């Protein structure tokens, strides 16, 4: 490489850094900064009226899974916390599975429409985004509550004798999250199916594959990037969901998000809240790493 070329490379590298400076500053200030504060707080002692006191302690992290017995001062497993974690993971997984089961046929339907109709359908899918999440959640509340649309309908049809209690159960949270996150599943699936070469279906049928085998051996593996993207987009926010479990779970069916909020509010235990937040971050990152690695490895060998 000539001296001139080296100089040019150096200059372009310098320019690259210069150009990304604003982005780097914003990232440092608003992403890394708060995260560092949360990290530091998680190792401190809770203040009496919220906030923190500057003394090192591992109580916050220990509090994620253990509580101190008031009388014996012994640490024991916090069943309530474990239940909340388990509920969060279970509901997020179920939400991901349900949105996929509903979203895949939907995305397939849209992707196989003529281009003009396709734009309309996509537009319809995105309409819920125009309304505030809280309002949408209350709309679901209105549908599933005891005096709501669903129960009234079933009662009038004579299918049930008394209203089914859906509101304030795990099921309510599950329905709400599946509704709220469905578009996040449909859009990446649509993008993947849109790229899918429909002629491969004929090739599959021609080579003796049944409908099921065409789906399993051709469509699903080829649209896998979309399935992964959709699953991540649904699973990650589900795990940290706050509004939906609050409104539809009625404060009893808490998920991690509500539990964290509790620590910063009534609980007045900021270090525990911080530790829980970081724990959530770790769970999500871990889940993503496993998922992506599994998915990629599969495509390499499968």
């Amino acid at each position, binding site marked *: 490489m000539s001296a001139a070329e080296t100089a040019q490379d150096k200059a372009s590298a310098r320019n690259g850094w210069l150009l990304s400076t604003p982005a780097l500053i914003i990232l440092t200030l608003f992403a890394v900064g708060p995260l560092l504060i949360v990290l530091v707080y998680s190792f401190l002692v809770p203040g009496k009226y919220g906030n923190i006191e500057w003394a090192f302690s591992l109580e916050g992290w220990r509090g994620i899974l253990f509580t101190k017995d008031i009388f014996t001062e012994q640490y024991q497993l916090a069943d309530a916390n474990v239940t909340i974690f388990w509920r969060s993971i279970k509901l997020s997984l179920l939400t991901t599975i349900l949105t996929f089961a509903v979203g895949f046929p939907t995305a397939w339907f849209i992707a196989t429409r003529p281009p003009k109709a396709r734009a309309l359908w996509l537009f319809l899918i995105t309409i819920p985004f125009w309304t505030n999440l809280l309002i949408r959640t209350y709309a679901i509340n209105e549908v599933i509550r005891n005096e709501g649309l669903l129960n009234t309908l079933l009662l009038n049809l004579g299918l049930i004798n008394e209203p089914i209690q859906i509101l304030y159960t795990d099921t309510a949270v599950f329905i709400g999250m599946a509704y709220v996150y469905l578009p996040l599943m449909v859009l990446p699936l649509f993008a993947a199916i849109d790229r899918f*070469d429909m*002629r*491969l279906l*004929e*090739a*599959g*049928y*021609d*080579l*003796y*594959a*049944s409908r099921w*085998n065409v789906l399993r*051996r*051709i469509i699903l*593996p*080829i649209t*896998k990037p979309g399935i992964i993207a959709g699953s991540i987009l649904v699973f990650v926010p589900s795990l940290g969901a706050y509004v939906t479990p609050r409104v539809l779970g009625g404060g009893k069916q808490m998920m991690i998000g509500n539990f964290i909020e509790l620590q910063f509010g009534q609980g007045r235990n900021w270090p525990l809240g911080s530790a829980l937040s970081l724990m959530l971050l770790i769970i999500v990152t871990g889940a993503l790493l496993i998922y992506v690695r599994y998915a990629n490895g599969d*495509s390499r060998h*499968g």
Partner: protein
Amino acid sequence: MTQVNAVEARNVVKAFGQGDNTVRALNDVSVEIRKGEFFTLLGPSGCGKTTLLRLIAGFEMPTSGTILLEGADITYLPPNKRPVNTVFQSYALFPHLSVAQNVGFGLQMQGRPKKEVDETVARMLALVKLEPMANRKTSQLSGGQQQRVALARALAPKPKVLLLDEPLSALDLKLRKEMQIELKRLQTETGITFVFVTHDQEEALTMSDRIGVMSAGKLQQVGAPKDIYTRPVNRFVASFIGETNFLSATAESGAARLGTGDLVELPGLTGSGSVTVTVRPEQVRLVDPAEAGAIAATVKTLVYFGTDTHCHLALKDGTEVVARLQSPATGEAGLAQGQSVGLRFAAGAAQIVED
């Protein structure tokens, strides 16, 4: 004993659309494709040749008519139940599978044991000379190699009939010529009946045992390449396969009288009225204008093609006739524009075609 045909279409009609918009892609087509032959469906785009192929593959169902495979009615059998495989124009290789997995797909779907699948895949890859590529992704292959994978994939389950939908159209000229020879070799080696769809008349002539010429949803003529070329039944076939001259004439007994008054001998011709005489350019000979029976003409343009020269001639009544002359070694055609010449048709070359 009459041999059972590999494929037989009986009075097949395929209409698309509804009401006034109905288009008949196939209009009462009947054809018999013999076992072990290389049969080509030839025609311009939109003539229905691909539709016929798709009906045999099972991707479409006919509006009416029957399709038989080795004597058995398969008209309404789904494609995955037909022992027929297709080489697609776009190849349609599975992008998520390796070359070997692509080739083995059909066998796997048939539920053959793994050992048999592996052996057949290895044999097929050897047949199309792609053994070193077995573990590559199909996207890493060139167009010609992808073509071979598509062939191997369709041949692996040993279909009773192999359907090829313009498989060479995406290749460049040199590769196409190679693949033509390759295809013919594969067909001979495997002994499988090939039904090949193309709009390229040269491809059809060089590869086929028999050709079915299609136009406007109808089968115009079925026959060996030589028959189709030398004895076209109608104007469409004559003009679609190769180049030809058409001359309007009046029928007389044993000859046709051209507009110029010259007589073209056509033994067996009887009756009267106007007829169309056709002569291939390579059957037109230039002779001394003074020679007895020579038709007087004037050289209008000369187009040099390397191996031969196309000489565009005008007859006395203005009719244009093209003669294909072998280019002399010196590159001099020995002809000049405006020169008066005589022309004569090679014996038996001129014939009558239906319009």
